[in-house]
């Protein structure tokens, strides 16, 4: 079975631009979460979606938005990019919500903002 996939692998943008990151969960998983991992730090929670509804939001500005599609794939959008948005963006999927559900992580998208 395929694991969580993310695209693109790497991305270079300039300040002020917009970016869209994509995630496909493991087949059968209905929950997708997004995390930002700045170099040398632990991941920080951005969003969780379940059945196309937002179930959780971390402490990130409104420039960050996300959505989940009927096939449970997800997009993370970041507007007006800042240098500080440079990070590894991780997507994780799980069968459902609830702490007992293991979250399976994708390989991440490395975003560099110049």
């Amino acid at each position, binding site marked *: 079975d395929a694991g969580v996939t993310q695209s693109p692998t790497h991305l270079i943008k300039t300040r002020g631009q917009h970016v869209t990151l994509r995630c496909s969960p493991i087949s059968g998983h209905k929950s997708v979460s997004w*995390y930002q991992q700045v170099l040398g*730090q*632990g991941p920080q*929670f951005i969003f969780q979606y379940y059945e196309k509804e937002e179930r*959780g939001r971390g402490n990130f500005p409104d420039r960050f938005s996300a959505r989940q599609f009927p096939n449970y794939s997800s997009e993370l959008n970041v507007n007006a990019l800042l240098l500080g948005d440079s990070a590894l963006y*991780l997507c994780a999927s799980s069968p459902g919500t609830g702490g*007992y559900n293991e979250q399976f*992580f994708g390989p991440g998208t490395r975003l560099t903002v110049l």
Partner: protein
Amino acid sequence: AQTVTQSQPEMSVQEAETVTLSCTYDTSESDYYLFWYKQPPSRQMILVIRQEAYKQQNATENRFSVNFQKAAKSFSLKISDSQLGDAAMYFCAYTTQAGNMLTFGGGTRLMVKP
């Protein structure tokens, strides 16, 4: 807000020896889940072991075991018979029963010497 702290930025262990990674957390919840994740240089985060707070018995997965001290809010990971493939970043993480987000510590880089 829940916080997770890993006080050891780096640890080193000789191959075949045992090493313990430390983690403390802060929460007002009584039921929650704790995890240790491994992130090798290839970046993909994988679950090593997890502990349900309501279980008194410490979790064990092959060479990996935890020492869960609920009153002290401590959750350490012991790796026995260390192998070269154990070299990675290790993150301690916490989530509530609702499980809508993982809170990660800052990570410990484990080096394994041959």
